[in-house]
């Protein structure tokens, strides 16, 4: 089967889908087909849910960050009720509640879910594998600076590191500090500096020098 083969529903098979069918893959097919036959859901609904999932990416969160950097009223709204403020931008968090935690020159926030893998999916898409790993879940609450150093982030002693363990109904987005040399930049240009990792807390926003030449604002 060619690696670019599309499923009849229109979604592409990954190359690894050519490996022998596993027990759990057979279970997924069985559960999905039975649920459709029993009228619990439809193939179209499942495909639509996958499309919605694919459409969510860190670009959503980057838009929120760029707006916080440039719009004081929005920043205040985010501090008051981040769920409502982001919903007004079109990013609905559903029954969860969003909290935006802002980095400053003396405070660096980082988010983890020690108990499972809670993550602000509507703003950042699906979580990376490392976020769900035993090492990240175990170590970040105990030695956050060592973990951050593995991601290339080192912080001076006069900066407090604050770890947020996403244990219940809250979801967190870290608001990285706005890089220097970006005065007057458009919101879209600023959003390009905001990386996924900077919104989890394992990275910083890119500097203007960090953008590839063609990405720099004119």
């Amino acid at each position, binding site marked *: 089967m060619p690696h670019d083969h599309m499923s009849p529903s229109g979604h592409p098979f990954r190359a690894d889908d050519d490996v022998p*069918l596993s027990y759990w893959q*057979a279970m*997924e*097919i069985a559960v999905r087909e039975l649920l459709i036959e029993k009228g*619990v859901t439809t*193939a179209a609904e499942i495909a639509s849910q*996958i499309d919605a999932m694919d459409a969510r990416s860190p670009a959503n969160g980057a838009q929120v960050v760029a707006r916080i950097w440039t719009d004081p009223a929005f920043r205040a709204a985010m501090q008051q009720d981040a769920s409502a403020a982001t919903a007004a931008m079109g990013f609905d968090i559903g029954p969860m509640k969003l909290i935006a935690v802002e980095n400053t020159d003396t405070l660096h926030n980082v988010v983890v879910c020690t108990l499972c893998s809670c993550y602000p999916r509507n703003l950042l898409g699906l979580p990376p594998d490392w976020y769900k790993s035993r090492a990240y879940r175990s*170590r970040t609450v105990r030695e956050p600076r060592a973990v951050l150093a593995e991601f290339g982030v080192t912080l001076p002693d006069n900066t407090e590191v604050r770890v947020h363990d996403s244990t219940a109904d809250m979801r967190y987005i870290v608001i990285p500090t706005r890089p220097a040399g970006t005065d007057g930049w458009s919101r879209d240009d600023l959003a390009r500096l905001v990386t996924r990792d900077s919104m989890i807390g394992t990275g910083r926003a890119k500097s203007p020098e960090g953008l590839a030449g063609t990405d720099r604002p004119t």
Partner: protein
Amino acid sequence: MTDNIPPFDGRRWHDMGGDTAQAVPKDQHDFSLWEKRVDALMILCSAKGHFTVDGLRRVLEDMPPESFETMTYYERWIASIGQNLVEAGVLTPAEIGQRMSEIQTRGATYGDATRG
């Protein structure tokens, strides 16, 4: 008699905050279509009220500790979804098992076996 196993203190294996561990692994896999379907089934079934994310998590936590190493993330999820749907009365083990047996005759790969 189980020698050399420390007495259980009540901390369950999934409750791993503070444990010692190695460097955070940075490799990232692309999500397969079947994994995205598992994720979608979870979202849809919970939205339709058949079970909650709490039930999903509870079944994941009740799996043996080695499952975290021997099963991938979405393998554990489909196992949990299946059990939650059985507990909800939506599916029976017999239905799932019989359909899986038929699926396993369709072909050698996921692409061969999936109809949609």
